[in-house]
């Protein structure tokens, strides 16, 4: 019975297949029922397997179910096999649980859309691919899921493909991910080359018995991390995620906040043995994560689009997760992934509710004072903001604190300071968002105000559930100062992620760090309060005083423009040159000339084909005469 977990991905897959094949003929009510139901069944299976896992002792090792051998080339084999251990259990629960709530929410959010069935088919397909990614027991199958979620992300970002910007954003996401995937594939190839297998267990064994040299392990780890950078939108491959907000808001919540973008973190945590072994990669990851956290946070400070603020916030929070992985606190990184899934999807869905209420308005400059109109959305939004800002007793506080404490404990003070700076900004931009949206003067479009309405129950109930988890989810991973047993989450993950050996910080230091975190969060909120409620003139004054810096940040540090100038435009010009000079002349010339040469000889030979039956018979007869002659003599 415990092996039933392999069914988890296939329920949404079956549903997606039915919706893709027969979706047009199915009534809308049934489509919503089937799509949500499939994910719910999947969630039920995941929960069932999870409790089964709780009852088995960790010595058993991971459950592995091989469905069939998929690739068998010489000595290399890749099975279509799934693995269920604490790490994948948590990921599967998050994907199906949050995914289910977002499916429900989508029923309300997408109800007016003409691509309703297509939307749910793709959403189910995404759930399938994501589950394959987290349940795979080898790198090759993981890559299948990895590409599958990339494809679904492309399809859903470009869901409103008649809008050119959406189609373009989808392509951008796909292409930027390709750059990362190149590294990922190379990493897998190197792994297969040296280890001879891509099974996670084999990789761990290879590290253990010295089959893998440290240099090679570092190379593989860096290549795989490049893949993670692409998928998890880390510097310098972060450019696709803000544009991905062109998709429907629930998609942003599910794919670009809660699940897909965290795949990179999951992958690093899954291969924690390799990353720990290589040694030198950890600090690199931590630095990339910290820089991303700060860099993205600064960009979030000045955005006016409500979803883009959240997108940069996601990039920034992913940076925190990578800090966790980089300093060796893989469990803390996963813990932040898990809490982030709740509060960030909550924020996105609540933002979606605001956008829905305002008939599609996303610019915060045309919001304000919405508190009284949206009695459900406002409190849940506030809960999400408080949780992400790192206010004590909510989930975000515990996970962010765990990462920063660990960074401090590893004496990575630069990382720690960067992390704190990011935390101040996080609190600031989240409350800037709250104040601009829900407080202050109404700057609504009169047309939008006429239709202003609170979202239906089908949207607000999932919000309430997510809000509940945003508050409580953190209590499974309390800080170490509250006792060794407080970190239930970390201990549950121990079979996969070995806890670091070095001793804990002193009690005083720990309390001091927690205090600093609290102060930092409150400071950010306080500044936002001053800037946007008390003295609304200050931001304008700052912009006026530092116009260059504002322009730099507002234009996202011109990263897109740099890429355009350095990579994309030369590529396009070069391609056009090659098209004109090589394709048209050499390639087409070769093809055309060889074809006309064949045609020429064919023309000559075709004179034999007179069309007269007698000539054919004559040749036939000549053949017979020669044949008989040969027989006779």
């Amino acid at each position, binding site marked *: 019975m415990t092996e039933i977990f392999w069914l988890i991905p296939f329920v949404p897959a079956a549903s997606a297949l039915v919706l893709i094949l027969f979706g047009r003929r199915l009534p809308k009510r049934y489509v919503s029922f089937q799509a949500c139901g499939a994910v719910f069944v999947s969630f039920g299976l995941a929960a069932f397997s999870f409790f089964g896992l709780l009852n088995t002792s960790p010595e058993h090792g991971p459950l592995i179910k091989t469905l069939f051998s998929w690739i068998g080339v010489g000595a290399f084999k890749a099975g279509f096999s799934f693995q269920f251990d604490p790490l994948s259990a948590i990921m599967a629960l998050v994907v199906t649980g949050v995914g289910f709530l977002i499916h429900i929410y989508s029923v309300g959010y997408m109800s007016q859309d003409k691509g309703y069935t297509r939307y749910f088919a793709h959403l189910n397909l995404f759930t399938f691919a994501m589950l394959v990614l987290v349940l795979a027991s080898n790198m090759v199958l993981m890559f299948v899921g990895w590409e599958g979620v990339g494809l679904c992300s492309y399809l859903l970002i470009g869901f409103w493909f008649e809008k050119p910007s959406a189609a373009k954003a989808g392509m951008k996401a796909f292409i930027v991910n390709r750059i990362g995937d190149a590294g990922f594939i190379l990493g897998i190839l190197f792994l297969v080359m040296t280890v001879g297998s891509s099974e996670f267990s084999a990789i761990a064994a290879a590290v253990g018995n010295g089959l893998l040299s440290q240099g090679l392990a570092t190379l593989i780890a860096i290549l795989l991390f490049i893949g993670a950078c692409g998928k998890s939108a880390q510097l310098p491959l972060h450019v696709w995620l803000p544009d991905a907000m062109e998709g429907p808001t629930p998609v942003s919540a599910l794919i670009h906040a809660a699940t897909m973008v965290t795949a990179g973190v999951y992958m690093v945590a899954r291969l924690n043995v390799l990353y720990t072994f290589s040694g030198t990669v950890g600090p690199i990851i931590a630095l990339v994560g910290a820089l991303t956290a700060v860099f993205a946070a600064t960009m979030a400070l000045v955005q006016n689009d409500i979803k883009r603020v959240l997108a940069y916030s996601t990039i920034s929070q992913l940076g925190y997760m990578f800090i966790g992985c980089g300093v060796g606190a893989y469990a803390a990184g996963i813990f932040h992934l898990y809490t982030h899934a709740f509060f960030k999807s909550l924020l996105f869905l609540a933002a979606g509710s605001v956008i829905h209420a305002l008939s599609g308005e996303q610019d915060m400059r045309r919001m304000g004072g919405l508190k009284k109109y949206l009695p459900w959305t406002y409190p849940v939004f506030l809960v999400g903001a408080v949780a992400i800002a790192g206010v004590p007793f909510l989930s975000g506080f515990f996970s962010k604190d765990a990462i920063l404490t660990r960074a401090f404990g590893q004496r990575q003070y630069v990382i720690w300071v960067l992390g704190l700076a990011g935390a101040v900004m996080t609190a600031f931009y989240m409350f800037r968002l709250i104040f601009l949206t829900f407080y202050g003067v109404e700057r609504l479009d009169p047309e939008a105000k006429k239709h202003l309405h609170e979202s239906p129950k089908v949207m607000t109930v999932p919000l309430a559930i997510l809000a509940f988890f945003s508050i409580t989810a953190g209590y499974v991973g309390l800080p170490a100062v509250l006792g060794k047993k407080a970190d239930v989450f970390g201990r549950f993950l121990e079979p996969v992620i070995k806890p670091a050996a070095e001793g804990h910080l002193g009690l005083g230091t720990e309390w001091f760090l927690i205090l600093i975190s609290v102060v930092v969060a409150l400071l950010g909120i306080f500044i936002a309060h001053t800037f946007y409620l008390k003295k609304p003139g200050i931001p304008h004054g700052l912009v006026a005083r530092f116009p260059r810096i504002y322009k730099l940040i507002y234009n996202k540090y011109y990263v897109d423009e740099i890429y355009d100038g350095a990579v994309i435009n030369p590529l396009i010009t070069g391609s056009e040159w090659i098209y004109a000079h090589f394709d048209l002349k050499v390639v087409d010339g070769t093809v055309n000339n060889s074809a006309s040469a064949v045609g020429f000889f064919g023309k000559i030979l075709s004179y034999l084909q*007179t*069309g*007269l039956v*007698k000539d054919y018979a004559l040749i036939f007869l000549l053949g017979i005469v020669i044949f008989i002659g040969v027989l006779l003599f």
Partner: protein
Amino acid sequence: MIPASYFFLLSVVLFVLGIIAFFLKRDLITQLMAVEIMLNAANLAFLALAKSSNFLDAQVIVFFIITVAAAEAAIGLAIVMLIFRQKKSIKTEDMRSMKG
């Protein structure tokens, strides 16, 4: 008794006459007749062989040849009819739509 080689020689003469008829004639019907002559020449050779080697099976083969010839004549003449209807001609040199 007549030596078997006489029959063989007659068969050869008839066969070559059939070939000559095929190349000399220009209408499809007579050319089909020439084919029938060749088939009969072969039949004669088979029967002579049956007689000289005391082998009854050769006669059965001749039976089959005649059957196939009948079928061939029926289809061949039907095709000739069809061609005549479409082209208003049964001259072989008019059928050259397969010219390369």
